[in-house]
């Protein structure tokens, strides 16, 4: 494919999809090990009341207030989940189940009670982006990457998700040691002065921010898949956390690129007329990689079973 075609039509969706995949996979590694991986699913439901409230306050469908509303709802949800988990001393899965169903239900009620007949408040449309539509019309080829005027026409989702990825990477790098120690052995972590409650909260808030930024760009399906599939597949390829993080990033990139390409060209190769959803295909690819890792990965058996008896 030539640059004139590739840069405007495929470069930005590929970059956005890849950034979103990595931004979710990084915190996903810790969430999977902490058995909190379903938090991505929870966040995709709890953002609804946040979006509705943002709409009620501003009276308009615009991206920033709705993203802030979604982020606010997500942060509120993770704080509630942590609080219920710690105060009630129950499993994280149960705490998530309680919070996200309640908040999603509240969102539905709010939506029903507000007068949305005049305005078409379509949540799918307002927030759950469409990867294929994030094209860069101002670009004419590779040279546009150096052209300030063309760069100004980049889809705003790209700088947003790129910035989020930088933030998530910084968080992981800076708190690497405390995150690793407190995920493995929380009691020990507390005795050496790590504030584990605070750190656990910071981790889920980071995940929530990554999730909301990724929803905006690529939709919820990728977010839910990327929190779980790349880290879970990577865990079966290695027995070292450092290597697991590296593999999860490789798998996230591979899923995003192959998923995007297959969605665009796969059906044509098979003789069908239309392309399929890129987000759906990326999530499918990550699932496929996970299945392959589960069947052939070198570290797929639980070696520590004798201690859980």
């Amino acid at each position, binding site marked *: 494919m030539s640059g004139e075609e590739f840069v405007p039509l495929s470069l930005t969706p590929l970059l956005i999809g890849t950034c979103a995949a990595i931004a979710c996979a990084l915190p996903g590694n810790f969430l999977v090990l902490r058995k909190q991986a379903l938090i991505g699913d929870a966040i995709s439901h709890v953002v609804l009341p946040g979006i509705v409230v943002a709409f009620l306050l501003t009276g308009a469908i615009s991206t920033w207030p709705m993203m802030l509303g979604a982020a606010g709802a997500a942060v509120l949800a993770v704080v509630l989940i942590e609080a219920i988990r710690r105060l009630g001393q129950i499993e994280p899965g149960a705490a998530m189940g309680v919070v996200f169903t309640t908040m999603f239900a509240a969102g539905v009620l709010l939506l029903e009670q507000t007068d949305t007949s005049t305005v078409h408040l379509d949540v799918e449309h307002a927030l759950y982006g469409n990867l294929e539509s994030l094209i860069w019309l101002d670009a004419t080829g590779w040279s546009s990457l150096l052209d300030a005027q063309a760069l100004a026409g980049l889809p705003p989702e790209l700088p947003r998700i790129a910035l989020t990825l930088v933030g998530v990477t910084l968080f992981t790098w800076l708190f690497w040691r405390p995150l690793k120690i407190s995920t493995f*052995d929380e009691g020990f972590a507390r*005795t050496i002065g790590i504030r584990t409650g605070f750190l656990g909260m910071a981790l889920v808030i980071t995940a929530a921010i990554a999730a909301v930024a990724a929803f905006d760009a690529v939709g919820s399906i990728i977010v839910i898949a990327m929190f779980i599939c790349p880290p879970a597949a990577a865990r079966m390829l290695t027995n070292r956390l450092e290597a697991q993080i590296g593999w999860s990033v490789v798998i996230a990139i591979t899923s995003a690129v192959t998923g995007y390409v297959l969605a665009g060209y796969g059906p044509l190769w098979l003789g069908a007329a239309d392309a399929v959803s890129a987000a759906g295909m990326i999530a499918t690819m990550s699932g496929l990689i996970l299945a392959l890792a589960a069947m052939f990965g070198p570290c797929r058996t639980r070696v520590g079973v*004798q*201690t859980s008896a």
Partner: protein
Amino acid sequence: MLGLISNEGVTVQEHNLDDSPLAVRGLTVSYGQKPAVFSVDMTVTPGAMTAIIGPNGAGKSTLLKAALGIVTPLSGQVTVFGQPLNSQRARVAYVPQRASVDWDFPTRVIDVVLMGLSRELGLLGRLRARHKARAMDCLNRVGMRDFADRQIGQLSGGQQQRVFLARALAQDADLYLLDEPFAGVDAATEKAIIAVLKSLKEAGKTVVVVHHDLATVTDYFDHVFLINTRKVAEGPVAEAFTAETLQSAYGGRLATAQIDQISRALG
């Protein structure tokens, strides 16, 4: 039931709080309605090996966790070397119960031992050859040097316990607190652990162990702390570890035959 046990217990000697590596006053911890630890005073003797003993559910582990700030007590004060715990964390090493962590965690033996150096390294301090050499030395002391590159889940229970002890050694602390280090380990591991703990004592360190095997108390320890939610007795083994104190700590749960046996062992 609780009222039958003397609140004061048998306290054979009291130390100046400033001397004690770990002093607890009026500590009460509750999970839900029932207190797990009620109004407990404990003064650990410096340079000694102390066993915390009591029946299942008597609050032994909870006492240790509350003293370390892992669980939040309802009330009470804790001082470590006469100071608040937070200023003394570098001098305290803790070995949790082996079953409290997921041994399937993706990490190697050497990485677990290096966790003991994390206070020294800080957030972003670089891991250098001398840190690794120190961790290897700690593994050597527990006889696990050859296992440094193994994934932790591939170890036996006894080997896992030794790795936890090596991590505590890497902390180079003055006070060592161990929660049931002999639970479910093989005889060779038990011998290796007790040898390391005795060498710590010889180096002037203080060791406190939550222990469940009454038969080995006199062999292993100098001091005992008997607890059954409340303090029952505290002091040197010869004075505080008696048929009477055991009877009041364990009540009917300890068969008379066992008490007789221990009494005979104590002479």
